[in-house]
């Protein structure tokens, strides 16, 4: 029997660890997203980019003039716009990642049956999970770069460490996308999916984008500090203001755990869903 290219490609991966879950080809899932994007509706993509900028202008300069300056953790005093800009960047990385990894994934899973098609090929479930997350990441990256391109010339990113806010935004997007996809893969109805949006709003409002956590009583601060967006905002804010200390490693670790946990459950769940 003649050996086809598809077979020899698959055989090359056969002896690798985890070969039945991962064919080392998540980039083709990204390629699919890019092909689809070409002819799809750009509105959500563009609005996801504009949203944080609108907040920045209206709150940073509108509300900011009423509020005046704000003192941050190391005692530094910054303008209100400078205070909220990193928070908005973190939020936009989160929103971009969540959009791709929740609603988009839900549709492909249940309406479009797109994963059924993908998993009938020599791809494995981890390829699909990673590929979708990679797509979300790239959106997070694009939003971060776009935001920085506007915020930096406005003098809102005072420290050179701020450049690291871009990889940080990617890390944040990775964490949210990974968890977002895991949660989505367990949800079975639009009602359940609605929960994601409902819970994101308070997370966004209370995680310290618009004011320092110190306005809250201790117990509330403790709760907020368990939330991922707080870690994201702290990470990016500290970098852009040049506040460099060990707490950054804690925030990074938080997201690494999110990534691993999310990928684990997503792969497991996709396996269960598609290997019924």
């Amino acid at each position, binding site marked *: 029997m*003649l050996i086809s290219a598809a*077979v020899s*490609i698959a055989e090359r991966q056969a002896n690798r660890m985890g070969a039945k879950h991962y064919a080392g080809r998540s980039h083709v899932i990204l390629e699919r997203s890019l*092909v*689809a994007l070409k002819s799809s509706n750009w509105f959500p993509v563009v609005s996801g980019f504009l949203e944080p900028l609108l907040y920045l202008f209206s709150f940073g300069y509108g509300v900011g003039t009423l509020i005046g300056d704000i003192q941050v953790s190391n005692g530094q005093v910054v303008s209100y716009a400078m205070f909220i800009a990193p928070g908005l960047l973190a939020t936009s990385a989160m929103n971009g990642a969540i959009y791709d990894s929740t609603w988009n994934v839900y549709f492909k899973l249940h309406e479009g049956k797109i994963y059924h098609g993908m998993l009938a090929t020599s791809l494995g479930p981890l390829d699909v999970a990673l590929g979708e997350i990679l797509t979300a990441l790239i959106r997070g990256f694009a939003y971060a770069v776009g935001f920085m391109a506007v915020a930096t010339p406005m003098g809102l990113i005072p420290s050179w460490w701020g450049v690291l806010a871009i990889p940080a935004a990617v890390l944040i997007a990775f964490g949210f996308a990974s968890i977002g996809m895991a949660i989505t893969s367990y949800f079975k109805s639009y009602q359940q999916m609605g929960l994601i949006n409902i819970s994101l709003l308070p997370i966004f409002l209370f995680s310290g984008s618009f004011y320092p956590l110190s306005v809250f009583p201790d117990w509330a601060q403790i709760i907020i500090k368990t939330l991922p967006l707080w870690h994201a905002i702290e990470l990016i804010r500290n970098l852009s203001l040049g506040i460099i200390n060990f707490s950054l490693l804690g925030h990074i670790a938080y997201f690494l755990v999110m990534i691993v946990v999310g990928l684990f459950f997503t792969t497991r769940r996709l396996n269960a869903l598609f290997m019924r």
Partner: protein
Amino acid sequence: MDLIVVKNLVKQFGDFTAVNGINFSVKQGESFGLLGPNGAGKSSTMRIIGATSQRTSGEVLILGKDPEQAGPQIRAHLGVVPQQDNLDEELTCAENLYIYGRYFGLPKITVKNKLDELLEFAQLLDKKNSKVKSLSGGMKRRLTIARALVSDPDILMLDEPTTGLDPQARHILWDRLFRLKEKGVTLLITTHHMDEAEQLCDRLMVMDKGEIMAEGSPTELIKKYSTKEVLEVRFGSDRNSQMVEQLQSFADRLEELPDRLLLYTESGEDLLAKIVAANIHPNTSLVRRSSLEDVFLRLTGRSLIE
């Protein structure tokens, strides 16, 4: 060489047993059919062989490998046409084929060079850049079949491939499947169309309620489970069942369908003459050769005519 070996395969969904201990094997280059009424367990069996569903128990080997251990490697050999199309509706016809080839890891250029040939196969060259959303049901079916060929599969698995195709498209498809078979591609087909099974399958298996009722080539099955000819008689829907008792003794076997009676015999003309001589006059009568339809009716007690 046996490409597919299935032993004591069981598939349960909760308490429900969809496939109940079946055994069969398929040789390289063979064209093997699964026939059976709705819910017989055909698609469940196909999905397990396609390494997209986990069996409850039993043994399955595809090219000597267990689909649960080597899913991606096995799927690289397969071209799968699922019962329900799962094309990527956001993409165009050409993009669907292209990206599917990429899923198998084929180089971009290789896939691009194949697109026109595959679109031609699906008779969709003129729809190359149309979104799949805008295709008719039959066109989607043809695209799904073309898509299954993008990776040059050794085994083509077709779950009711011609559902939704018009007669012309069906015949074209049969012709193309035949050519693939000549090239050595092994075909695994489920169908409700007996003519399709007779045309395409070297060997087939009749399934019902998760079990195998019979197995063999179309001619063998007809020989074993039916007579040479069938006399179909109609007395009008209210009288058909009254006539059953009178006619029973004339034929080797009699089947009562809602609109007609089927009398199984070696010679239909002779039988008709005898009936008429006994002063029984059907409204209409028809003599025909036995087909898989009759085998099916005999084995499952159900008619398949749609």
